[in-house]
């Protein structure tokens, strides 16, 4: 080999050693590791793994042949970015909560915890993605050969072994840094750092090549366009969107790439599994599209430049970026470009292999081993020792398959065709993934059928024509359709002939996939476990922790069994540590001889799922459990029972409250009755007393009159008057009692009439005149001159006035004045009677309106009267909807006032 060949090989290996060193440095330095973990920029750059060798070389090939048609592949991811924050955040939450490590885990766990579905998805992914890995090997190999061929006579032995050497070196890298721990969902921080570094490198290399070609080889991009216009007959086609249905094509490829950037296993690995913080998505929303824009900036100038420089030479346009510097003997730039392409391809190979090998070991090999050895008690022991080995075997198997594919089929495909065919394949999972996250009714049967139809049509419309076209058999089918039916032609299915093969295949596979998924989901009923998983996925943001969403177990296992299961996979110390932390967290004692608390089962399952994936973990846990888990229908029954108990409790509490309330009311009523009883006793005692006093007088004076016949005329007259007065007093008392009873029972009604106030006052004067004259009192009437008539019950108000005036006369001093003031305000007529009595103390001013108050408080004051007058006055005024009260009182006199409303006497 020449010096340049050695140099190139040396640079390539140095570069790989650099990658090794970066990964090693990051993994072994906590400070750097934490920085990488917390860096949203590193996360965003790692997403640029989307730009593989296909982008690096293939975009230029597409642009050179068909112009702008390379752009939708990058516009799709740009378009989907704003939706990512919502879609991917939910996906990340589900993945973290369930220890999911692959897309197969994601779907099989959602659709009934089905290991069989996981196996199907794994096999399909290997079928669809391995060609894509071989594409990267092809790109590295071709670029190697290109540089070597240019600089020296190619060494055929070296050339033939380049792909093998590349695979071995990359395989070693993956085995060293990709399978360090047993946890399959571990964060490969070292690898992510290497990928981010590679992303920067390939961008810089691409920009250097673009600047070199645009500004060194040519004067400016402008010159490239002008020259292209003059020299290239197909120029117009290259700078516009062309084709039979140009915009349908544009749209189809945009949607296809938008789906692929989310679901491709390597993208799932970096964007979901390797995500350390959901907030990193915010940076990726703008940084990733910016990266895509920069890496595409010089694609068209390089493609057109290559077309100008190699016009008619039959060069492969995929490698213009390498050919142009080589043509101008720019070895340094060629090497940089080569390293850029090498890093683009190697990054993809590393990540895609890790993702697929996890899938192969967790979703295919381990479940198969568990199934085969389900009667073997020691199967868990054996598996624990072999988990890492199985993953390493998977890595080797994936790389060997890629090499095999490269050797057998790859020579017949261009970079772009393989890439796009893989894109269409991965899009087949899209309906199932969206259904998993957003539609609780979607079922496992729908996933099987939609995948079967979608993948079948993908094979028939995209893979099959490529194979038979290359191998010269079955051309009849392509030309005349299956069984001679023209509508079944693989490239023009159902006579759809306006689309390119990729968009055609994408359209029909997705058409059948989506519709079958919806229809079958609607027609079938999800199983209990599917329903439960649907709640966990669709309502993932409702759960704050994994425990909330875990399966509830009816029975439990022996702690010794659980401990032994954990020890096999975690080691004795870690297992003990895990059980201790569980014990502390839930305050549950861990005694090996006792059955465990049911809470420990999901805890153990979660620990195991980190190592063997959630599906295999479930199978293992079931092997030590004494009883089966409770599925959603049983949970619903329990919830229903709980609800009924809660409802019953609520009703009991309600009844209890009502009883409490009734008891309180009864107590109140009882107190009132006791009070009324006391009042009644008091009332009877008072009435008895009031009746007894005059009766005693009457009886005494009657006896005197009867027994003493020699009484003088004057004495007889005096005693007769006393008897008469006391009789009148008894009569009045009885009348007042009867009146009061009528007011209390509501039998009294008002006889309203317009009363002339002048006449009313005159009548009053006449009634009280004689009494006043006895005490030589002066009556002063102050009637508001605007008051002529008042609507009221004349007799009753008359009774009130007489009562108040009589009291005033009784309590006034000799030769004093009594005033009656009648006025009004906006609402009421006001009657005020002012005397010059001793006044009423404030505490008694309300009590005097109670029945017999005066009588009951004889010790305080005992003027003449029954003690019922003011009580009756109050009743009369209340009947008028008015108010009576002591307006003011002092030792110099008292003022009573009552008011009756002007209107509203109804």
């Amino acid at each position: 080999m020449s010096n340049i060949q050695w140099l190139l090989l040396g640079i390539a290996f140095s570069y790989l050693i650099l990658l090794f060193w970066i990964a090693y440095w990051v993994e072994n330095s906590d400070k750097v590791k934490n920085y990488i973990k917390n860096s949203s920029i590193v996360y965003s750059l790692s997403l640029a793994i989307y730009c593989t060798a296909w982008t690096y070389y293939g975009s230029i090939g597409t642009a050179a042949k068909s112009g702008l048609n390379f752009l939708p592949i990058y516009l799709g991811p740009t378009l989907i970015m704003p939706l990512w924050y919502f879609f991917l955040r939910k996906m990340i939450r589900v993945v973290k909560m369930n220890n999911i490590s692959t897309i197969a885990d994601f779907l099989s766990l959602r659709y009934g915890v089905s290991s069989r579905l996981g196996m199907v998805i794994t096999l399909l992914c290997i079928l669809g993605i391995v060609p894509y890995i071989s594409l990267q090997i092809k790109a590295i190999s071709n670029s190697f050969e290109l540089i070597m061929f240019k600089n020296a006579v190619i060494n055929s032995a070296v050339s033939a072994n380049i792909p093998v050497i590349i695979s071995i070196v990359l395989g070693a890298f993956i085995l060293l840094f990709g399978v360090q721990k047993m946890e399959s969902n571990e964060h490969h921080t070292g690898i992510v750092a290497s990928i981010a570094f590679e992303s920067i490198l390939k961008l810089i290399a691409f920009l250097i090549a673009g600047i070199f070609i645009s500004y060194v080889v040519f004067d400016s991009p402008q010159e490239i366009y002008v020259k292209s216009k003059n020299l290239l007959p197909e120029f117009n086609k290259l700078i516009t969107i062309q084709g039979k249905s140009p915009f349908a094509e544009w749209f189809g490829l945009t949607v296809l790439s938008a789906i692929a950037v989310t679901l491709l296993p390597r993208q799932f690995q970096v964007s979901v599994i390797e995500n350390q913080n959901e907030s990193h998505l915010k940076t990726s929303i703008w940084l990733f599209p910016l990266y895509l824009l920069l890496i595409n900036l010089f694609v068209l100038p390089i493609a057109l430049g290559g077309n100008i420089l190699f016009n008619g030479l039959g060069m492969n346009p995929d490698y213009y970026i390498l050919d142009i510097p080589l043509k101008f003997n720019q070895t340094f730039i060629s090497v940089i470009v080569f390293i850029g392409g090498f890093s683009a391809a190697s990054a993809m190979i590393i990540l895609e292999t890790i993702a697929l090998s996890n899938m192969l070991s967790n979703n295919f090999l381990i479940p198969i081993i568990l199934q085969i050895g389900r009667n073997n008690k020691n199967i868990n022991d054996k598996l624990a020792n072999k988990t890492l080995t199985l993953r390493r075997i998977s890595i080797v198997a994936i790389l060997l398959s890629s090499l095999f594919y490269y050797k057998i089929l790859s020579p017949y495909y261009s970079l772009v065709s393989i890439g796009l065919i893989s894109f269409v394949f991965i899009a087949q999972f899209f309906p199932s993934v969206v259904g998993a996250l957003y539609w609780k009714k979607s079922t496992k049967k729908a996933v099987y059928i939609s995948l079967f139809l979608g993948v079948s049509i993908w094979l028939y419309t995209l893979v099959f024509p490529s194979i038979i076209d290359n191998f010269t058999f079955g051309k009849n089918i392509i030309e005349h359709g299956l069984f001679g039916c023209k509508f079944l032609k693989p490239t023009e299915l159902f006579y759809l002939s306006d689309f390119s093969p990729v968009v055609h295949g994408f359209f029909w596979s997705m058409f059948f996939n989506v519709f079958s998924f919806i229809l079958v989901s609607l027609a079938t009923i999800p199983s209990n476990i599917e329903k439960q998983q649907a709640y966990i996925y669709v309502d993932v943001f409702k759960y704050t922790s994994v425990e909330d969403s875990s399966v509830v177990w009816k029975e439990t296992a022996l702690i010794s069994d659980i401990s032994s299961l954990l020890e096999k996979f975690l080691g004795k110390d870690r297992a003990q540590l895990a059980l201790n932390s569980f014990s502390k967290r839930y305050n549950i004692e861990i005694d090996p001889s006792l059955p465990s608390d049911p809470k420990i089962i999901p805890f153990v399952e979660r620990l195991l799922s980190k190592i063997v994936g959630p599906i295999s973990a479930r199978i293992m846990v079931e092997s030590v459990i004494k009883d089966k888990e409770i599925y959603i229908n049983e949970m619903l029954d329990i919830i229903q029972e709980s609800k009924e108990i809660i409802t019953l409790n609520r009703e009991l509490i309600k009844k209890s409250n009502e009883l409490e309330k009734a008891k309180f009311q009864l107590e109140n009523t009882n107190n009132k009755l006791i009070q009324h009883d006391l009042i009644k006793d008091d009332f009877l005692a008072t009435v008895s007393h009031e009746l007894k006093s005059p009766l005693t007088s009457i009886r005494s004076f009657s006896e005197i009159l009867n027994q003493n016949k020699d009484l003088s005329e004057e004495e007889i007259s005096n005693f007769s008057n006393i008897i008469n007065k006391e009789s009148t007093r008894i009569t009045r008392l009885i009348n007042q009692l009867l009146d009061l009873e009528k007011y209390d029972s509501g039998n009294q009604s008002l006889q309203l009439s317009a009363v002339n106030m002048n006449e009313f006052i005159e009548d009053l004067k006449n009634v009280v005149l004689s009494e006043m004259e006895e005490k030589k009192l002066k009556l002063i009437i102050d009637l508001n001159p605007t008051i002529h008539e008042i609507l009221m019950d004349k007799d009753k108000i008359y009774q009130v006035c007489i009562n108040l005036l009589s009291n005033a006369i009784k309590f006034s001093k000799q030769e004093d004045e009594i005033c009656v003031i009648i006025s009004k305000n906006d609402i009421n007529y006001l009657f005020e009677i002012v005397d010059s009595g001793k006044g009423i103390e404030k505490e008694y001013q309300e009590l005097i309106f109670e029945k017999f108050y005066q009588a009951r408080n004889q010790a305080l004051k005992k003027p003449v009267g029954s003690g019922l007058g003011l009580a009756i006055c109050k009743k009369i005024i209340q009947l008028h909807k008015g108010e009576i009260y002591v307006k003011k009182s002092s030792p110099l006199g008292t003022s009573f006032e009552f008011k009756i409303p002007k209107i509203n006497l109804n």
Partner: protein
Amino acid sequence: MKKETSKIPLLVISTIFFGILLNFPILNLANNSYFILGFPVLYSFIFIVWFIVIIVSYIIVNRK
């Protein structure tokens, strides 16, 4: 309230993207062999919009 405001970037960016980069009548207007300052008009149009959208995304995502 927080949930509603978090939808703003989604709506704004989606509108810009779907309204311009996937708006075929607008793309069709630029789908010709003319040049703008020596560059193909459609190519320039797409990249300018692409760049503007990145700036808008950055501003919206990083607003306080």
